[in-house]
């Protein structure tokens, strides 16, 4: 048998220490808090960015880690948004409990639909997830008495947060509330991706056949992360409802499923922080571009996406990875 020389710094050290928090992981939070003070006039946009970061983060768990390519993630975002909205219209105005209810409803929908869609893969999976979201949107459209239909759900009243912080006109409470919820969701997502379960999801993404051959209950694992991802998406939807006090049918739309996918691809898939780059990049670009070109701003986003897919696989974080690899070589 061949005896290999022992390497000096082993990969085992890397594996053993991967879950430890590193300095760069604090950057998004410092940035978000700094933005609160530096751009007080942009807090409404800022709040929406945080919500989309959470939505994209939820997608990253399913798509980036477990390799579940979905075109219907708005189904869960929209479910969360409508649950929070309908509760508020019927007098359940306390926001935190409503968030939990939205998460539970979206998570449950994730289990039920996941039990069906996760039996498929590839193009079929793509189509079935899309169909689920489209069916829900059509249902919301038809159930006007409950959802407000095409006019949107109006008359939403949200009680002050923790009984004392009112949702003000400038979006200060909304911004900090969204940031706090995003932080908690990130802590959950981060714990999951560094756990043995999270590593096994990467194994499933890399090679399903091999995972089955090492005795991994692949379907059950994928269903579990799909439900968690759905619950987090539902929380994002509920946040949008509570901070804008309105729900439109668009929260269930194919466009939204596509948009969040584009955000994640721009930032970088399967890296946990792609959402934190892609969502702000997309929304700030949209905000600026739409000012100059309200009709065709999407063209520039499309061009950016084409460039990323052609020249920068892995998005912005993929570029960062390659630069780092080159520096340390």
């Amino acid at each position, binding site marked *: 048998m*061949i005896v290999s020389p022992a390497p000096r710094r082993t990969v085992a050290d890397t594996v053993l220490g991967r879950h430890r928090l590193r300095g760069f992981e604090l950057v998004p939070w410092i940035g978000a808090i700094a933005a609160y003070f530096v751009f007080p006039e942009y807090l409404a946009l800022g709040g929406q960015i945080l919500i989309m970061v959470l939505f994209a983060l939820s997608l990253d768990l399913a798509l980036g880690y477990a390799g579940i390519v979905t075109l219907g993630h708005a189904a869960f975002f929209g479910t969360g948004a409508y649950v929070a909205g309908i509760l508020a219209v019927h007098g359940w105005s306390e926001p935190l409990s409503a968030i939990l209810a939205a998460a539970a409803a979206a998570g449950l929908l994730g289990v039920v639909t996941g039990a069906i869609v996760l039996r498929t893969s590839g193009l079929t999976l793509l189509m079935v997830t899309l169909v689920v979201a489209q069916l829900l949107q059509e249902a919301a459209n038809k159930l006007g008495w409950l959802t407000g239909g095409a006019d949107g759900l109006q008359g939403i009243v949200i009680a002050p947060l923790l009984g004392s912080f009112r949702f003000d006109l400038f979006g200060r409470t909304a911004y900090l509330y969204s940031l706090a919820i995003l932080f908690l969701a990130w802590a959950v997502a981060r714990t999951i991706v560094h*756990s043995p379960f999270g*590593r096994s999801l990467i194994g499933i993404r890399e090679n399903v056949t091999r995972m089955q051959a*090492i005795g991994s209950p692949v379907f059950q694992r994928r269903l579990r992360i799909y439900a968690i991802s759905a619950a987090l998406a539902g929380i994002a939807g509920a946040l949008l409802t509570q901070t804008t006090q309105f729900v439109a049918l668009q929260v269930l739309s194919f466009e939204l499923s596509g948009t969040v996918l584009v955000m994640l691809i721009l930032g970088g898939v399967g890296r946990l922080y792609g959402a934190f780059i892609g969502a702000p990049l997309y929304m700030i670009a949209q905000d600026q571009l739409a000012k100059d070109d309200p009709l065709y701003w999407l063209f520039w986003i499309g061009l950016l996406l084409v460039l990323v897919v052609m020249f920068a696989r892995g998005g912005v974080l993929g570029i960062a990875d390659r630069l780092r690899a080159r520096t340390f070589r």
Partner: protein
Amino acid sequence: MSAQPALETRALCKSFGALAVARDISFRLPAGARHALIGPNGAGKTTFINLVTGRLKPSSGQILLGGADVTALSAEKRVKSGIGRTFQINTLFNGLSVLENVLLAVGERHGIAGDMLRGAGTYRAVVEESQALLERLGLAADAARPVRELPYGRQRLVEIAIALGLAPKVLLLDEPAAGVPSAESGLILDIVETLPRDIAVLIIEHDMDLVFRLAERITVMVQGAILVEGTPDEIAADPHVREVYLGTEHTR
């Protein structure tokens, strides 16, 4: 060592419509055996492995592991009952490091892979066991490299390392040296030869030198059925085998 065979199949059949790919296969692999399964292409060797591991459902017949009937168990459960396999074509986690390829298998075996709450790195014993396994197979120097960057022969070793990470009682090796230059196939053979005797090994192989060096018994399959089983000498001398498989000019 128990008297029960490590692996046994009873009258195992599999058909796709009118096409019978496994016909009445009754096979015994004693504990600690070194057994080769040979046969021409399309004889149903890999199909047999897929039936045994649960990737395919048999049309009829039984599969027993250590005397226990596992016919109704899923592929995952059978792994837990002590069956490990390698694939004819590399089936690896290409983007992950060699260490992590093995780590996933070892983690599944220890039953920790469903844990969502702790960092994977806090399971130090699992990481160390995986590292030790790589050292045993001479793969330690490659531990940090992504599998896809390894030469094909080294990747074949990772195939075996993953299967060994499951600590199987029955190890099914589907052409472990396929596609490997002969200079390197010796290394793979060395590893198979040094496996501990508490693992029963069933090896599918086309390289006859390798088969005759390793196997204590050989089973020949043709058209989905077992043609003959015997010691290497008996198989080499069998006129039927010479006719259908080895070719008339084969000599040892």
